[in-house]
Every structure is written in structure tokens, then in C-alpha cells.
């Protein structure tokens, strides 16, 4: 599926379930997402992780509404509980099946996002493994001097930003020396197209999602 269309579908679905307290609609989103993830051969371990991660916030929200609010509203509580899972599974069905490079290409070619945004952010995201390493290095270097840097230490952020400033200069320089020019038309070796099938899937799935929502309004 075209990355932009997939992203749009997930954002619209997530927004829509945010505005409604609808248990069947949430379950439907979860079901479709899980099916899609299985189609993409998701690992059992990853799936288990997706189930475990939201359990504490989802359960916390459930108890707040059901046990501690004055109305003890089970319908709302369970709708909120499943909604958390709907967000997580819908989000995962995008982020686990789409590469940042494909999304950048698609946004640039299909949505006419300026290339400096598409490639600038891509350049930064490709640094992720080094970024994680850098945070560890900064912490270790401080620890060697007997200073403990944690997420509540402004100095940790300060040092991380210093590194980011250096890298952004270097990356921009590297891009320019490879022939990248801002605001100039570019040709692409890999064309990303929006196929009729993508649109059909998006519209079809959105119509299916409306069924439980319209049903709730009618009753």
C-alpha cells in the first residue's frame, strides 16, 4: 500500500475513534490492524509486546472511569480501554510495515512535500543508532568524573544538543556536496505511485468503520 495513503487512513481512523466512545468501532480497528500485521508476518514476540505495553495506562484509565468516577460507566470505561489498544495496533500496522525512506519518497512525490523536509528529516532519522550511542557516551563520560546525568539533568540535554548542532552542520554539508540543492526540482529513480487499489482499500475500510459508528448514532 502507498505509504501516504496508509498513513492518511490510520490518522483518519485514529481521529474518528477519538471523537466517539464506540466499543465495536475500536474492536474493528484492532481486528483489521492485527489481520494486516499477520499478513505482513509479524513476529509473535512483537505482537505480545504490543499487547503488554499499553496494559498499565489502559487499565489505569479503565479503573478511573469505572471505579472512581461518580457514574461508574462500564460502557465508557471499556470503550476507553479498547481505544488505547486500537491506537497502538493501528499505529503499529503503519510503523512496523513502512520504512522511513519509503514514506519520505512518497510524501515528496505524492504530497509535494519540499525535498528539504523529506531528505533533511530522513538524514536525521538515519542517525538514530548513533544518537542512542551518543547518549550512552555522554552519560558514561560524566559518570567517570563522578557526575550522574539523568533525564532530569539540564546538562544532559545541553550536551546532546551540542552534538546535534555539530551533526546537523556536517550532514547538511554532506548533502550539499552530494549535489543536493534546496527548492530545486528533482528527478527520482524510484517512482512512488498512488494506485487505484490503494484508494479503494482506504475508502472501503473507512466505510466499514462507519457502520458501528452510524449504528450507535441511530440507536
Amino acid at each position: 500500500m502507498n505509504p501516504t495513503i496508509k498513513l492518511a487512513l490510520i490518522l483518519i481512523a485514529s481521529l474518528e475513534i477519538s471523537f466517539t466512545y464506540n466499543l465495536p468501532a475500536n474492536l474493528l480497528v484492532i481486528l483489521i490492524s492485527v489481520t494486516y500485521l499477520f499478513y505482513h508476518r509479524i513476529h509473535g514476540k512483537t505482537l505480545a509486546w504490543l499487547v503488554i505495553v499499553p496494559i498499565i495506562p489502559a487499565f489505569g484509565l479503565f479503573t478511573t472511569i469505572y471505579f472512581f468516577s461518580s457514574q461508574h460507566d462500564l460502557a465508557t470505561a471499556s470503550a476507553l480501554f479498547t481505544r488505547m489498544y486500537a491506537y497502538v495496533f493501528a499505529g503499529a500496522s503503519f510503523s512496523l510495515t513502512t520504512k522511513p525512506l519509503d514514506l519520505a519518497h512518497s510524501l515528496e512525490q505524492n504530497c509535494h512535500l519540499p525535498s528539504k523536509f523529506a531528505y533533511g528529516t530522513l538524514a536525521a532519522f538515519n542517525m538514530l543508532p548513533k544518537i542512542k550511542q551518543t547518549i550512552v557516551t555522554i552519560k558514561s563520560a560524566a559518570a567517570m568524573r563522578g557526575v550522574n546525568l539523568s533525564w532530569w539533568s539540564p546538562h544532559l540535554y545541553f550536551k546532546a544538543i551540542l552534538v546535534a548542532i555539530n551533526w546537523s552542520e556536517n550532514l547538511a554539508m554532506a548533502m550539499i556536496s552530494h549535489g543536493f540543492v534546496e527548492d530545486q526540482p528533482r528527478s527520482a529513480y524510484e517512482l512512488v505511485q498512488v494506485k487505484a487499489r490503494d484508494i479503494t482499500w482506504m475508502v472501503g475500510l473507512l466505510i466499514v468503520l462507519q457502520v458501528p459508528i452510524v449504528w450507535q448514532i441511530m440507536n
Partner: protein
Amino acid sequence: MNQKRKLHVRDIILLALIGILFGAIFIGTDFVYNALTAMLTPFGLAPMANDLMMGLWVMAGPLAGFMIRIPGTAFLGEFLASVGEMFFGGQWGAATLISGVVQGIATELGFTITRYRYYNWITLTITTITTTILTFGWDMLRNGYAKFDFQLLIILFVARLISTFIFGGVFVKIINGLLSRAHVLATR
């Protein structure tokens, strides 16, 4: 500052890098969030973990707005942080993007109100207030805050305001102070 300055590719890379760096630091706070939620659940205050942590999650926005003084940078800093979170192990996936847009607009609004002219405590106080109000409004829907009792809402709002002020205000001011003492911003 100079409002006519344009965003160049190195600014965009820097904004994205800051977002990702902050994300990498926040990965360590996931367990704090979960522990807070678990601790507050027996008191019926589970959502408060959200409000207490909010300041951390919205830090990238005001900091980016302070560092690169061009309209739109606060929004981009916050939004790109959420894009980074989506791709690299954030638990909320693409729904993070919507929160990122809301937080980004909220922070940017604070700078818009001061017309991108003043970068001081007043600006930070205003961004704190706009961020708190807008993100709270969004949580009314997303996290079902609309269904809570009024008394609880007041507690949550105050918690969020304090958290946002400490991390999105005091922290940003300290970090920005360190950066300007290091003279790394002048050349940009």
C-alpha cells in the same frame, strides 16, 4: 529576531535531531510513567501520570523555538519529535503524530502571541499556558478526560500546568542559558 530568515536544510536536520535525541532520553522515562500510573491507580488518579509527565514530552517545542528563532520552528521541533517516536519504538504509534500536531500548534501559539519578538520568561509562561490548555483539551477527547469528575479535572489541570512549566519553562530556560554561554547559537 529576523523574521525573514528561511528554514534551511541544516535547521531542519537540527530540529529533527533534537526531537530524536530527546526521544532517546525519554525512552528511559517510560518505566517512570508506567510506575507512576501503577502507583496512582489505587487512588483513582491513574491519568495524573499523563499530566505529570506532560512537561517532558513537550520540551522539544519551546526549546526549538528558542534556539532557532524563525516562525514555525517550535511546531516543527515538537512534530518531528513525534515522527521520530513513531518510527522508533514509541508505544502509541501513529496516534503520536496527532498528539505531536496538537502539542506543536499549542507551543507555536505561545510564540505567535509574543510575535516572535520576545524570548524571555513571559514567552515561556505564555507557551506553558497555551500548551497546557490545548493539550488538555485534546486529552478531553483522546484520554476520555471529558468523562471525569470536575474535581479530578482541576487536579489534573494543575498537575499538567506545573509539569509543563518546570520542564517546558524552567528547563528550557536553563538549557538555553547554557547554550548561549557556550556561544553555539550565535553563528546560526
